[in-house]
């Protein structure tokens, strides 16, 4: 089921484009800062993308204005990604490329703003009457408008697994044959719903998040936009990396707590191995969901211990970027691809003393090692799990 990954990019609190991922990881520079998000006075740390505030949409896209779409616009400009998309359109055709985006909260930040500016009769004023923005498909609509893509398009919203699942949908679409390529991506931006919502669940840390640390006490919310171009293998012999497998599952346990034995997580990882036709021993690095919540990290380490030898290197990169929710899958896929490209595996920033309760050792320090095959995990509310396997094309 191999699919070629012919281009990718990510913009997060680390900066715009992949070069900042590499430099921040190598230098152990976190993108997290004390919460300074406009209108929010919660004591927590956030992964804000600095450049969003100064980003304006071009006039022909102004009717789509929202923080989420500004972040999407900013993200699409990086790493020559749009040019890669245009070149693929020239080769494959504008109607043979699907658009599969992901988000948890879409443009709800704009909807929050609109509700604060209702007119005297309690309705949306003209400026905020944006049917293409105040909905869950806003990322898909925006990306299709920017790129001119006219094929099938949808937005997946399964909380924090959303932008891992875009790869599964894209693979099915390409294998079924009604498209030859799919532009996949995930975008989530900071908004009050998310900050006050996670605060209500008492899941926010008051310090920078510490994935897998004994003293971890919650997550840091981040924002990000990431994209990848998946192409039918025979149409992209030049690609450096491939999607080798994917797995999707449900916990069937609780809306906001993971299954205590990591049943869904294990199923998703097992299925991704099965689709890739690989034994667990072939996985050289795993980018973990590792949110730094008490429950997730404990359960994820237990799930790993059921499948992998303790020699397998595994880390969480959320100490650098924060938890970017619906964008986490694509951001961490891009981080994993960059790790493979440069032979530098990220450690787990802010993890000083791994929890003794863990059944699986966590990679805490950055490690230079060339690898060919890696896994990426994303788990979300509603017990929604997804796992991807990525590899070098020539392997």
């Amino acid at each position: 089921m191999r699919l070629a990954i012919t281009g990718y990019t990510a913009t997060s609190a680390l900066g715009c484009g992949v070069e900042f991922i590499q430099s921040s990881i190598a230098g152990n520079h976190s993108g997290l800062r004390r919460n300074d998000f406009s209108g929010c006075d919660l004591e927590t740390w956030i992964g804000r993308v600095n450049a969003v505030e100064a980003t304006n949409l071009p006039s022909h896209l102004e009717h789509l204005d929202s923080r989420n779409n500004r972040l999407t616009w900013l993200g699409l400009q990086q790493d020559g990604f749009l040019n890669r998309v245009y070149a693929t359109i020239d080769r494959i055709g504008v109607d043979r490329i699907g658009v599969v985006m992901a988000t948890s909260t879409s443009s709800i930040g704009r909807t929050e703003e609109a509700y604060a500016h209702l007119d005297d009769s309690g309705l949306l004023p003209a400026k905020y009457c944006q049917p293409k923005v105040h909905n869950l498909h806003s990322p898909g609509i925006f990306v299709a408008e920017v790129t001119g893509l006219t094929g099938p398009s949808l937005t997946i919203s399964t909380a924090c697994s959303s932008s891992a699942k875009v790869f599964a949908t894209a693979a099915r679409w390409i294998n079924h044959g009604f498209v030859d390529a799919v532009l996949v991506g995930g975008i989530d931006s900071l908004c009050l719903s998310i900050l006050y919502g996670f605060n209500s669940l008492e899941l926010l840390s008051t310090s920078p998040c510490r994935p897998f640390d004994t003293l971890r006490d919650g997550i840091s919310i981040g924002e990000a936009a990431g994209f990848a171009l998946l192409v039918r293998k025979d149409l992209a012999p030049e690609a450096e990396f491939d999607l080798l497998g994917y797995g999707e599952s449900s916990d069937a346990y609780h809306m906001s707590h993971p299954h205590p034995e990591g049943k869904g997580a294990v199923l998703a990882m097992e299925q991704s191995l099965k689709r890739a036709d690989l034994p667990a021993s072939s996985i050289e690095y795993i980018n973990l969901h590792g949110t730094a919540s008490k429950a997730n990290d404990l359960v994820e380490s237990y799930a790993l211990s059921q499948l992998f030898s303790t020699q397998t290197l595994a880390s969480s990169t959320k100490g650098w970027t924060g938890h970017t929710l619906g964008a986490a899958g694509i951001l961490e896929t891009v981080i994993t691809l960059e790790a493979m490209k440069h032979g530098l595996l990220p450690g787990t920033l802010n993890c000083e003393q791994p929890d003794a309760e863990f059944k699986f050792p966590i990679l805490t320090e950055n490690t230079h090692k060339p690898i060919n095959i890696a896994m990426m995990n994303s788990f979300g509310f509603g017990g929604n799990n997804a796992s991807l396997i990525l590899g070098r094309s020539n392997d």
Partner: protein
Amino acid sequence: MTDLDIAGIGIWSPFFPDWPAFCDGINSGNWHENAPLQPGLIPSRERRRAPQSVKMAVEVLDQACNMASMDPAGIATVFSSAMGDMQITDYLCKILVEPPRLVSPTRFHNSVHNATTGYWSITRHTHAPTSAISAMGYSASMAMLEAAVQVAEEDTPVLMVSQEMAAPEVLRIICPSDYPISLALLLTRPGLFPHPLASFQFGVQRKSIDWPGLHPDLEEPFNGNFGSRLLPLVTAIASVSSAQTNAPNRFEFPLSKSACLNISLKIRENIEVHHE
């Protein structure tokens, strides 16, 4: 074109609480006025707290699954709605206008688009994959495509849901939906279930088309509702006269401004058993 079966249908709105009621409405013009939403799968003490989006989805998923008497453990789900739970969006946006911004934790975790399939997987103990999507005005047809492709590519039965709630006042200009509606179709590979309601072939075509019209009785309540777009398909299955003609019914549902989903539907002759 790929062949699939429709093994079960679940449907709910204030005008038809289930499939027999929908068939009765189509064939006899007998519609309910204010049908209750009481999904048996949600214990009565929890029903008051469960958000409407979850109650609607769980009700139609359960109906479709029960019609085929199929174990949900091996059935994947694809939930679709353009706007998600608009009552929760409305609640969050109102409470966040000014301090103290005390958000209900339950409403917050129910605000995720996949709360519907999450609740389903928890109550029916299924570890099968679940997804939740939106394609705004094209949500219903894109969910049908997404589910049908998943059946074909993964050889798994898939329950797809097309749903939209009534819009709260502020969001009505974004989504002109007056009445809630939810539709579930249980799609399987041909022959998996011995007595499917219908079989169909589907394919994607480059073509710009309009949505097929709704049954005249359903136009007024559901014309502006993105969740109603597949009703012509199930109207054909419900209709006694179309079941007797035996000729394939061809449908074209837009997927985007320039693509459409072709469905060639063949209704099974044993349809009468489902009209009791």
